[in-house]
C-alpha cells in the first residue's frame, strides 16, 4: 500500500472564548486518510468544522490532540509546504498589488529566481484564464476573479497536494465548470486534491472519494461508487389527464410531488406500484408524459447522514 498523502488520527480542537469562560469542541476525534492521486471531497454543513480541519492541516491553527502527517512527515515542517498548494475560503489578497505582482511575490516565498517567478506567474495566470487581466490591481477584481487568482497562487509551485477550501463558492456556472476541469486536470497529472464543499453536485462530479463531516468526526467516508447504490431507488412519473387524487389507486405506495395544470408529478418507490399506476392512468383515459428512474445521489446520502441523529 503506498504511503498516504495525508493521514490524520484522533484530531481534536476546542475553541475557547475570552478568558476560557466559554468553549466549544469543534473537532472531536477526526480520522482521515487520503491516498496519492485521488480527489477527496470533505462535505459537511456550515460550521461542521471543514475549515477548522483544513486550517489544522496547514498549521494555521494547532490541534489540542491528535496527529497530522503529510507525505509521511509531521505537518509542522516548513519545507513540506513547498509541495502543497492552498486556496482558502473567500480569499482576500493584497489589494494594492496587481495579479501578476502578487503571483511574483508568492513565487519569491518559494525561493524562485526572477526568471523562474515570471515564467511560473505567466503560466498559472494562463491556467486560470486570467492572463488578460493580470495587470489590474486586485482591488478591482470581482469575487470570481479573486477566486481564480487564489487558485493561481495555490498552483504556482506546481504542488503535489492541493488543498482547496470551498473552491467553487463565488463562481458563476462557467467558472465552476472551469474549476472542475482544472481539478480533474490536476488529477490527470497525478496530483492529490483535497477540497471542502457543500455544493454536492460539484463533489459528485469530480470526487473519487468523499467524507461527510458531522459532529466533529468523519461520519462516513468512501468511494462514491461504494456509497451510492447503483440500483434504482425510485421513479418519477409525469401523467396528464384526470387528477391524481381521483384515480382508483387503493393501497398505492407512491406520493404526489407537484401539480402543474393538468400534469401531475408522482414519485413511486416500488416497481409493482409503477406498473399499477401506468395501468390505471391508461384505463382512466389519462396520458403518460414521462417516467424517470432515480438512482441514489450524493445528495440523498448526504441528507440521510446529516439528518440522522
Amino acid at each position, binding site marked *: 500500500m503506498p504511503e498516504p498523502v495525508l493521514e490524520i488520527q484522533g484530531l481534536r480542537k476546542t475553541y475557547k472564548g475570552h478568558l476560557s469562560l466559554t468553549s466549544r469542541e469543534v473537532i472531536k476525534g477526526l480520522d482521515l486518510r487520503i491516498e496519492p492521486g485521488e480527489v477527496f471531497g470533505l462535505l459537511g454543513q456550515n460550521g461542521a468544522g471543514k475549515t477548522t480541519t483544513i486550517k489544522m492541516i496547514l498549521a494555521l491553527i494547532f490541534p489540542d490532540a491528535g496527529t497530522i502527517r503529510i507525505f509521511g512527515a509531521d505537518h509542522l515542517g*516548513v519545507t513540506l509546504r513547498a509541495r502543497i498548494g492552498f486556496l*482558502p475560503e473567500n480569499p482576500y489578497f493584497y489589494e494594492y498589488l496587481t495579479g501578476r505582482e502578487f503571483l511574483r511575490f508568492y513565487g519569491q516565498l518559494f525561493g524562485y529566481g526572477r526568471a523562474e517567478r515570471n515564467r511560473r506567474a505567466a503560466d498559472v495566470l494562463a491556467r486560470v484564464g486570467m492572463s488578460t487581466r493580470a495587470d489590474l490591481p486586485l482591488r478591482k477584481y470581482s469575487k470570481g476573479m479573486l477566486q481564480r487568482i487564489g487558485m493561481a497562487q*495555490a498552483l504556482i509551485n506546481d504542488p503535489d497536494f492541493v488543498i482547496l477550501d470551498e473552491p467553487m463558492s463565488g463562481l458563476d456556472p462557467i467558472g465552476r465548470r472551469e474549476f472542475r476541469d482544472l481539478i480533474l486536470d490536476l488529477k490527470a497529472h497525478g496530483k492529490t486534491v483535497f477540497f471542502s464543499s457543500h455544493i454536492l453536485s460539484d463533489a459528485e462530479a469530480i470526487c473519487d472519494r468523499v467524507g461527510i463531516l458531522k459532529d466533529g468526526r468523519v461520519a462516513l467516508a468512501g468511494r462514491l461508487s461504494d456509497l451510492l447504490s447503483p440500483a434504482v431507488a425510485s421513479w418519477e412519473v409525469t401523467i396528464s389527464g384526470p387528477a391524481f387524487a381521483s384515480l382508483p389507486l387503493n393501497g398505492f405506495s407512491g406520493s404526489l410531488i407537484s401539480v402543474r395544470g393538468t400534469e401531475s408529478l408522482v414519485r413511486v418507490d416500488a416497481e409493482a406500484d409503477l406498473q399499477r399506476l401506468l395501468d390505471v392512468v391508461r384505463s382512466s383515459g389519462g396520458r403518460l408524459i414521462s417516467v424517470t428512474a432515480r438512482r441514489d445521489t450524493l445528495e440523498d446520502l448526504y441528507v440521510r447522514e446529516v439528518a440522522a441523529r
Partner: protein
Amino acid sequence: MKTLAIATNTFREAIRDRILYLILVFAILMIGSSRILSLLTVGAEEKIVKDIGLASISLFGVATAIFVGVGLVFKEIEKRTVYTLVSKPISRSQFILGKYLGLVLVLAVNVAVMTAFFFGVLLAKGWMDLAIGRAIFLIFIELMLVTAIAILFSSFSTPILSSLFTVTFYVIGHLSWGLLLLADKLEGEFGRMVCRVLYRLLPNLDAMNVKGAVVHGIEVPLAQVCAASVYGLSYTAIVLGLAALVFRRRDFL
C-alpha cells in the same frame, strides 16, 4: 531571501498608504516653521531650529513606527492574507522578521527625507555640524526599537491596545532613569531591588537621546554613540525574538 520578499511587500504596502505621506508632510511643515518660531527668540535662533528639527524627526518617526507598526501584523490576520502566506514554505519567524524589516525600511526612507529637508534648512543658515548626524542616527536606532515593541504587541493584541501599550512603553522608556533616583530615595532593600530590576528590564530609550546635548553644543563622543547603538540593537533583537515566540503558536482564527 524569503524574509526580504515579505519586507519588500510590507514596504510596498506602506508607501501606498496615504497616512505615511500625511505624517511626512506634517514633519516637513514643522521643520520649515521652526524658522518662524526662532524669530520669536533673540540670540537662540540656532538652538530653536535644531531643537525643533530633531524633535520633529523623532516624534514623527515614532508616530510612523507605532501607527503603522501596530497594524502590520494585525491586518494580515484580520484580512486573512496570512493564511496563504504562512502556508507557503516560510516560518512564522521569517514572517515577523520580514514585516519588521519592511517597516524599518519605510522608517529609513522617512527619516532620510526629513533629514534631507532639515539639513537644507541648516545649510542655508550655515549652522550645519556633524553632531546633528549622530543625534539622528541614534533617533533611528530608537525607532528600530520602538518598531520592534509595536510588532511584539501587535503579534497578540488589537491595534488600539497595541498602540496604547507601545506609547506607554515609549513614555516609560524615556523616564526609566527616574527608577534609579527612586531606588536611592527608598528606605527598604526590597523596594530598591524592585526599582533596579525594573530599570534593567524596561527599555532605556533615553540612552539614545542626545538631542539636548547636540543642540547645546555639548560633544557626543563616538564611544557613547556606539554603546547606545549596541544597547538599542540588542534590546531590539530580544523584543523581536519574543514576538516570534508569541507568534509561533498563535492560532489564526
